[in-house]
Structure formats: structure tokens, C-alpha cells
């Protein structure tokens, strides 16, 4: 979907493969999307859909046997895919940064918060000791942590605080883009809500864009501008968040939304989506979702669908192919 202004991040035809003793396994297939400055883009999907792999590919953090096999990632006028480590290091943390999934695992358990912030700074800039300290205090206050905790070790902070410390670390150089890999999955529901609101508040204050990967679709329903739904390595639906939630075009998105029991409203029996995601080493011919799809028809077993426009969203479903009758919504 072409955007009016110049996008901050522009991904086209991204393809990630895992080398194996047999044919390579395609973990991410032809993924493309744009991120406008200050936008919140959520990438949702279940285990094995490739969302984390895609995120790591964006940040150029993949290691063998995974590698980017094709595609471009345009950011600030550069193609991140073809850049060398040295060139990337100039951009890393200053222009874009990454928040990992489990803060307890990502933070060094034997170093204080101050030391870890200092490490991050020194890796990308030459600040004086005073400047490092001042900036560390600033970012901690930004996320609502008392700066006294600069002297704390990660295990002395609660789960929510650790996660916020990770976000603070990611904001040390006020980057234009922050990539987040399931930063809320280890938190309880109240802490999750608090963290999401914190992120939105920071976005409003500092103006950075966010690419947010999660398996919990409902979590991002009120916070993201754009939503990408991934399945078996591909984007199966993408578009403005509210539109995808209110009028999901792809059967998988519909099934996924239906799998969330609601807190309010009538209690009705739900079915979820029977079956499991395909083995990516032996993907189905034709549509990847077809074996589990309640509205599949003959062509689905043979033809791989493209991402077809359906109003404001894109949907990778033959039912949405131009010229085809739409299935009942």
C-alpha cells in the first residue's frame, strides 16, 4: 500500500531461509510493509509463523543457519540487507534499537543497570562519564523508574520494571525506530497494560516509530496503527488495526479473532482453529492455510494466493482475488 509521505522503514519481498542438510526451509516469505515516522506497527501471529525471525532479519541479527535470502529493507536511505557490520554499527542504537523478549535473559545478571546503559552508550558513541550518567538518569525518568535504581542489579527489579529498563536502554539515543519482540509476554495483565500505555506515551513525547511483535492480538488492538497478521512465514492480512479487527478479510484472522473469549457480551461456544501450522520443511502446495481453512475450495490446494487489496486492507486469500465472489463476511 503506497503511503503519502516518505516511509521511515520500507520492507519489500523479504525472504529468510534456514539452511539444512536438505533443501533450505523458508521461514519468512515475501514479506513487505511500510512504517511511517511515529507509527505503531504490530505484527501478530502464533508460534512458528516467522514473526520473530522477520524481526531479527530487520535488525540484521540473524545468525547461521538463518540468513536473508532476498528482499530489501530501506531505512534512512540505506538498504539494511546489504550493509556490512561496520556500516550497521553506525545506525544501530542511534537510528534504530531493539527491545528483546525476556528482560531477565537479555539483561546481564551480574552488571548494574548503570553499567549496562554505559555499555550500550560506549558501543555507539563517545560520551563523557558525566554525560552517560545524565542521559541514563533521563531515560530512566522517562519510563518512570526512580534513578536510584541505576545501582540495582536486574534481579532486584520487578518484571515490569526490568522490561521498562530495557525500553529505557533502547531510547538512549532517541532513535527513530524501536523494534520490540514480545516485550510483554512475561508480564501480568495489569503490568502489560501499564507497559503498553507507557510505550504510547513515549511515542507521543519522542516521536519514534515502533514495530511490535506479539502473539497476543488483543493486546495491540487499542495501541497499534497498522496490523500485520502472519501465518507460515507470510503476511496473510495487513491494514489499519481497527479495520482488521472490525472486518477481518482473511479466514485465519477471522479464526484468530474468534478464538479470544470475550469478557463482556454473551457467552457463546467457540471453536478456535483446529489443526496445527504446517511444517515449513514441507509446506503445502497452494495456500498455506488451506488444510485448516473452513472456507477453502478447490483452487486453494493448487494456487498460492497473492496479497489482494480488499478495501483498506490486504488479504492473502483466493476469495479476495479480483474477480472472485467474496465469501460471506
Amino acid at each position: 500500500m503506497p503511503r503519502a509521505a516518505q516511509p521511515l522503514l520500507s520492507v519489500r519481498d523479504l525472504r529468510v531461509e534456514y539452511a539444512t542438510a536438505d533443501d533450505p526451509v523458508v521461514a519468512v516469505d515475501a514479506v513487505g510493509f511500510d512504517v511511517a515516522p511515529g507509527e505503531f506497527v504490530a505484527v501478530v501471529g502464533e508460534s512458528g509463523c516467522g514473526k520473530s525471525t522477520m524481526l531479527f532479519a530487520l535488525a540484521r541479527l540473524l545468525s547461521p543457519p538463518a540468513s536473508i535470502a532476498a528482499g530489501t529493507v530501506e531505512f534512512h536511505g540505506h538498504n539494511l540487507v546489504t550493509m556490512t557490520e561496520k556500516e550497521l554499527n553506525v545506525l544501530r542504537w542511534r537510528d534504530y534499537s531493539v527491545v528483546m523478549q525476556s528482560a531477565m535473559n537479555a539483561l546481564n545478571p551480574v552488571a548494574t543497570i548503570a553499567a549496562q546503559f554505559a555499555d550500550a552508550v560506549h558501543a555507539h558513541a563517545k560520551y563523557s562519564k558525566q554525560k552517560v550518567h545524565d542521559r541514563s538518569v533521563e531515560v530512566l525518568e522517562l519510563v518512570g523508574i526512580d534513578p536510584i535504581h541505576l545501582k540495582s542489579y536486574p534481579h532486584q527489579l520487578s518484571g515490569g520494571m526490568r522490561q521498562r529498563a530495557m525500553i529505557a536502554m533502547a531510547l538512549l539515543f532517541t532513535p527513530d525506530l524501536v523494534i520490540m519482540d514480545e516485550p510483554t509476554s512475561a508480564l501480568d495483565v495489569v503490568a502489560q497494560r501499564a507497559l503498553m500505555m507507557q510505550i504510547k506515551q513515549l511515542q507521543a513525547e519522542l516521536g519514534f516509530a515502533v514495530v511490535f511483535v506479539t502473539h497476543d492480538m488483543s493486546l495491540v488492538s487499542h495501541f497499534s496503527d497498522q496490523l500485520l497478521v502472519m501465518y507460515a512465514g507470510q503476511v496473510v492480512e495487513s491494514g489499519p488495526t481497527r479495520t482488521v479487527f472490525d472486518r477481518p478479510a482473511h479466514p485465519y484472522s477471522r479464526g484468530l479473532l474468534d478464538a479470544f473469549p470475550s469478557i463482556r457480551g454473551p457467552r457463546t461456544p467457540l471453536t478456535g482453529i483446529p489443526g496445527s501450522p504446517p511444517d515449513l520443511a514441507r509446506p503445502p502446495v497452494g495456500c498455506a492455510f488451506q488444510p485448516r481453512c473452513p472456507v477453502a475450495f478447490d483452487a486453494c490446494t493448487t494456487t498460492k494466493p497473492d496479497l489482494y487489496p480488499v478495501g483498506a486492507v490486504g488479504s492473502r486469500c483466493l476469495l479476495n482475488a479480483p474477480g472472485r465472489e467474496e465469501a460471506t463476511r
Partner: protein
Amino acid sequence: MTALLTGAALPTAEPVPRRRRGGTFRSVLRNRKALIGLVLFVIFVILAAVPQLFTDVTDPNKLAFAPALPMSGDHPLGTTALGQDIWAQLVYGTRQSLVIALVAGFFATVLSVLVGVSAAYLGGVADEILSMITNIFLIIPTFPLIIILATYAGKGTLTVVLVVLVVTGWSYGANQLRAQAMSLRNREFLESARVRGERSIYIILAEVLPTMTSLIVANFLGAALYSVLTAAGLQFLGLGDPNSVSWGTMLYWSQNQQALQSGMPLWSIAPGLCVALLGVSFALLNYAFDEISNPALRPVRRKRHAPRRTAAA
């Protein structure tokens, strides 16, 4: 809530493809280290089992030949200073070295498992006591202990050597196994077995041990390696039975007769090399076993593809 499905068939999950049968054997064949280790090991086993196929000499210790003969058709490695055929001694000596390695390795491993796993599973005071015993044996300097034990036991018979090896060789493995058992202790399937009402003994033997097989086998191979090398060392120092036929005794006698200096180098080198090769075979099998049981360690041999062209932006 009776509206929720009664009678309706519950949806089944997708079938998951089964792993190929006989995968272990094929992985052994594909793994180079395993193959070399296995081949070496098998060679030694054959030599030990049917030594008579490889040499005409029936009593290698008998002073039957002229001393200090060089390599020849009759004596592939020459003869010793005392007139024994070196090749024959080597072949017949394989049996004792192999027996020592396997038997001492086995018993040391059994002891390691008993102490290590019980300590981890029982916890509390029992764990403290068992760990203390393990650590004491671990700290005691092995070689002086071995020498003292061997001298104290008097004649250095095979049994004495075995006992000494087991007593000094079990503690390292016990610590490793205890550590692994501790990490398994709170795995949910063990808790599930407890909640099911299984007795502790059953849980240790039937639930904990089977999941530790790869470490136990690795321990065994390590203990076997240790035994081979240490036994050779003991015998070299004269603490074994000097009248037995083994590689270590050959080393003792060759050192005694100053083989290297007197122009009979093969007498020293051949048994030394054999000790090393048997040790290598255990070490390679150890690596290989790790790789087979833990696929994450396997080196990935990738198919070569034509380089892909990046899509146009």
C-alpha cells in the same frame, strides 16, 4: 454453560509426521568422528577376542626368540631385550587393557550414578553428606592415592588395579550427574509422577535415569578413557603385575631395559601408541555420542545452491 459442546466430536489435531526409524544408526554412520572411533574400537575388540588370528606366538611372555631383533617378516615389530615378540605382546595385551577400560569404567559409572543422582533427588541432609564424600574423593590427589593404595594392597594384581581405578575415578562423574539430576528435579513430568503417587525409588530409576542416558554414557566413556590412561601409568610405574601381558607392562619393561636408548624404540612406542589410540577411540565416541543425542551440536552440511538474485527494490 451446557451450551458448550456436548456430544459433538471434538476437533482432532493435525497428525505429526513420525521420525524415521533407525535414525540413531544412520547418524552414527554419517558422523565422521563416530565412525573413526567406532572403527578403532572394533579393531581393538577383535584383537582382544581372537588374538590367535593375528600372531602365531601363543605365549608372548616366553623368552622364545633372540633379543633385540629389528622389524622383519617373522617379527613385525621386532623383539624385546628379553627375546619376546613385540607384536605378539601387543596383540595379547589388548585384552587386558580393554577389560580394564570397560570394567573399571562400568563400575565407576555405576558408583557415580548412585551417588550423584541420589544426592540430587533426596536433597537435604543426604545430599550434603553425599556431596561431601564426593568432594573429598575429588580433591584427594589421584596419583599419590593410587600409588599408596596399590603399594598397600601388596601385589599389583588385576583386581587391585581395577579397585583402585574405580575408587579414584567415580567422583568426577558423580558431580556432573548430580548437577544434571538437579536441573531435572523440577521438570514437570517428575512432579507429575510424584503427584501420581509413584514411590521415590521408582521415580529415580524409571523416570530420572532414562532422561539422563546420554550423560551417563558420556560418563562411562570418560571413565573408560581415564582407566586406560591411568592403568597404563600404574603399570608403567611397576605397580601392576610385571608378569602379566599388557601394554602398560610393556611400557614398564621397555623403560626398565632402556629401550629407547638401546635401539629398540618400537618396544616403547608401540604400546604407547596403542594406549593413545584406544583413548582416542573413547574420546571420539564421546564427542559423537554428544552430537547424536543433542542435534544442536551437529555441524550442518549445507547443500550448495546457485547464488540467488536479490529482488529489485
